Each structure stands twice: as structure tokens, then as C-alpha cells.
């Protein structure tokens, strides 16, 4: 069973935003590595480490590959050449750049995904509803998150139905396009029809709220958390400024 925190979702988001902003600004390998380890440690505590690593790797591996190709293998400016053959030019500086960019991306991805695995979606939706955001936002967020598994399920059912109909398509690009069209037409038709059918009833239930709106669900929160959030938001703006301002002086 995964462990959960009795924390307001926005507290988690604000903390992560502050950490990512300052780490990116500092651009130090040891700080970035420490943040990554901290994130993984938190995920292990929450018993979500496997999910975090799985999701993260799916994004990071191709991104790292791209950064390595662009900076590591074809660097034009680095002085310390390790290998040069035809278009390939590997330099120490290029590899360092690729590594630093890789770490920057990794911090953003892992810390961001940590929010996803820590925050309960119902709490997030309720928090958005109770915040000053437009009342439509909470519904859109919730509806999309809950529609996803339903549409995936429907897509499987449609695939089965088409197998039953003997929907044969050719190979190659035309076959691929035909298959895509066959998959998406019933999915979109039924989903749109469903959305139209729902909208009248949602409107009848007062959605979107025009004035003050409330939630039955209460989201865990405290005065300390509110203070922490304000502090984090200040840090998102002031932290990078404090770290980076000296380098601008040098630049001008």
C-alpha cells in the first residue's frame, strides 16, 4: 500500500517548483544529484519508487540520447578534442554540457513526477476548485483524468468489435492511416456524443459555477503550510535571481 502525506497538494507543488528553480539556476552537479537522490528517497518512503523510476526513465532516456547526440558527439566549439572523425567531433566540453543539460532535465522530470506520484488526484481537483482559479479548471482537470482510463477501455472494446467485423486493412502507410481512422472514428463519435449528452445535465447542476463555489471534500491544510507555500513562491522568483544576478554583472 503506498503511503500518503496529509499535505495540501499546492504545498507539494510549490516546494518542488522552488527546488527545481533554484537547482536549475545553480547548475551545480552535486546539488542536482542531491536533489535527485532526495526525490528518489521520498518516493521510496512513499512506496512509489518503481513507478517514479519507470515514468522518469521513459522520458529521460530518449531526452538524454538526444542531448548526447547534439552536444556530446557534434560539439563545434570545445577545445579539448577527444575524437574527431568526419562529422563526429567529441570534446570534453561537449560531454560536460550534455551531462549538465541531462542533469537539468532529470531534476525537472523526477521532481515533477514526484508530485504526480505523491498527490492524490481527488485532493488536487478539490484544491484547484477551492483556489481562486476559474471554476471550469477543476472540472476539466478531473474529467480528463477520469476519462482517460475509460477511453482506453473503449478503445480496446472497439478494437475487439472491429476484429469481429473482419475489418481488414492493408500494410504500409495507407494501412496504418486506415487503421488509425477506423480506431478513432467510433472512439471520437461515441465520446463526443457522450459529452454532448452530459453537458445539458451538468449545466442543470449549476456547472460552471458563476459565483462563490464550495466543496464538500476538505483538503488537508494548515497555517504553517500556507506560510511555507508563500515562502516557496518567493523562493521561485528570488532564489534564481540571487544565484544568477552575479553572473549578469560579469556579462555586462
Amino acid at each position: 500500500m503506498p503511503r500518503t502525506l496529509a499535505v495540501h497538494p499546492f504545498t507539494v507543488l510549490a516546494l518542488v517548483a522552488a527546488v527545481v528553480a533554484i537547482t536549475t539556476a545553480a547548475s551545480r552537479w552535486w546539488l542536482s544529484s542531491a536533489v535527485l537522490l532526495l526525490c528518489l528517497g521520498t518516493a521510496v518512503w512513499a512506496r512509489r519508487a518503481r513507478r517514479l523510476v519507470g515514468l522518469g526513465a521513459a522520458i529521460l532516456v530518449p531526452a538524454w540520447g538526444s542531448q548526447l547526440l547534439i552536444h556530446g558527439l557534434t560539439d563545434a566549439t570545445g577545445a579539448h578534442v577527444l575524437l574527431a572523425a568526419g562529422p563526429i567531433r567529441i570534446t570534453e566540453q561537449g560531454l560536460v554540457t550534455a551531462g549538465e543539460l541531462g542533469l537539468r532535465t532529470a531534476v525537472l522530470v523526477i521532481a515533477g513526477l514526484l508530485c504526480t506520484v505523491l498527490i492524490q488526484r481527488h485532493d488536487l481537483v478539490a484544491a484547484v476548485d477551492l483556489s481562486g482559479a476559474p471554476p471550469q479548471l477543476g472540472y476539466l482537470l478531473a474529467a480528463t483524468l477520469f476519462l482517460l482510463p475509460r477511453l482506453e477501455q473503449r478503445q480496446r472494446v472497439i478494437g475487439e468489435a472491429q476484429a469481429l467485423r473482419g475489418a481488414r486493412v492493408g500494410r504500409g502507410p495507407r494501412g496504418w492511416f486506415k487503421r488509425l481512422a477506423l480506431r478513432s472514428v467510433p472512439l471520437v463519435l461515441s465520446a463526443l456524443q457522450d459529452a454532448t449528452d452530459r453537458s445539458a445535465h451538468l449545466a442543470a447542476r449549476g456547472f460552471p459555477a458563476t459565483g462563490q463555489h464550495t466543496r464538500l471534500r476538505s483538503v488537508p491544510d494548515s497555517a504553517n503550510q500556507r506560510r511555507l507555500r508563500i515562502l516557496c513562491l518567493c523562493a521561485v522568483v528570488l532564489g534564481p535571481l540571487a544565484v544568477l544576478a552575479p553572473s549578469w554583472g560579469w556579462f555586462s
Partner: protein
Amino acid sequence: MSPNLTLPDIAPGHLLRRRLMAAAAVVLLAGTYITLVLTQPTGLTDGLGASVALATFAAYLISALLLLAAVLPELPVSTLTLIPVALALNIVLGQFVGSVMIPLYLDSLGTVLVGFLAGRRAGAATGVLGTLIWSLFNPTVLPFAAGAALIGFLAGSAARFGALRRPYLAPVAGLVTGVLVGVLSAPVAAFVFGGTSGVGTGAVVAAFRSMGDSLLGAVTKQALISDPGDKAIVFLLAALLVYALPGRLSASFAFVRRYNVLGRRTSR
């Protein structure tokens, strides 16, 4: 107390404030883009590079959020129930493509569909929202929200000016959209992440770099190779989907009726 059964004729709104927010978003976005193209910062990971990365990230994200805040309160309920469907379609059909290993994204199909059916404001809002929700599963897409908004906006504009009245016009509009979106999004890939999201696109960028292009130039060229084709297919597919809708359903969208989006097809 008996309830009100009918609405007053004109709904009150904060029209001016919303227009100002949308204008601020466009100015911020355009300003950031022009600054980046003109200054072409070279360092990626030093103090300056980190500043550029953070500033680009923030400017693109904030302008997208401003756009969303400006547009969202104007959307009718029928559009609001359509948007989650579109967002889920973006993801589900994006996965379909992923599973057949064809170098296309198709992750904007739902956004384009909303643009076609509900207009450019709804399209832009869908683009931003889709990126926000997708960022829960992949945080690196956050600064691409502005590009996604542009896709929805252009899809809505194309539909308004008749791109769906002939089947061959839709992919043309898609090509144009792909060019504009590729150009707009290139600085994010170049200055925030220093690369692309995949190995294949990364190899293309590396090839341009080895031919002597700047990073922004190489990323822009790569985007111009892959984005227009992708968007042309997405626009074509979205147009086919709109044609496949029963007339009663497509006619229930005020945008479709008002701008005669489907041309003669509506009379069916």
C-alpha cells in the same frame, strides 16, 4: 421563492480585462521569442545559460496561463464538456502512434478537433490545458504550452475561414500551422533542454549542428522537417472525423453554424 427560468439577454462579463490578459500573453510570448532570436545566447549551462533557460521556461508558461485565464470563462458548457474528451483523445491516440513506431506525434488531434468545432479560443484553451494535464505525466512539456495553444488557435482560424469546406484544404492549413508552431517552439527545445525529446530528432539536430548551424537554427530546421507533416496528417484526420459526425451533433456547435464551417456538408 420561485427560481429564474430564463436568463437575461446579455451575460455580464469582464471583457476588457480578458482582452488585456490575452494581449499581455501575446506580447510576452512574442517579446521572448524575438529577444531569443536576436541575441542568440551561446552558453547553455553557465550562469547566463541557466538564466535564459529559466526565463524562457517562465515566459512561455506564463503567457500560456494568461491565455487560458483570458479564454476559459468565455467558453459555453457544451465546449467545456468537449475539452476533456479532446484531451483524453490527445493522449490515447498519441499512445496508438507510439505503439506502431512511426515518427509522428499526433498528440494534438483532440486540440485540432476542438479548434474545428468550437473555434480558436476554445482550441487555444484546449492546447494549454492539454499541456498542463500532460505535464502531470511528463513535466518537460510544460513550456511547450504556448505552442499547443497556437495549434488550437490556428485550427480554429482555419476552420473559420473555410479550411474544412474542401477536404484538401485541411492538410494545407496543417502544413502552415506546423511551420509556425515549429518555429515558435524551437527556442524551448534549444535553450531550456538543449535538445529534443527523442533520439531520432536529436540525430537530425546533431547533423545540422555538424554542418555549422547554431543550436537554435538546427532545432528550428529539425522542427520544420517533422512538424508540418505531422500537423498536416493531424488536420486531415481531424477533418475526416468532423465529416464523420452526424449532422445533428456537428450543428449543435454554435461556431460550426455561425461560420458555416462545413460548407455544403451541413445541409445534409
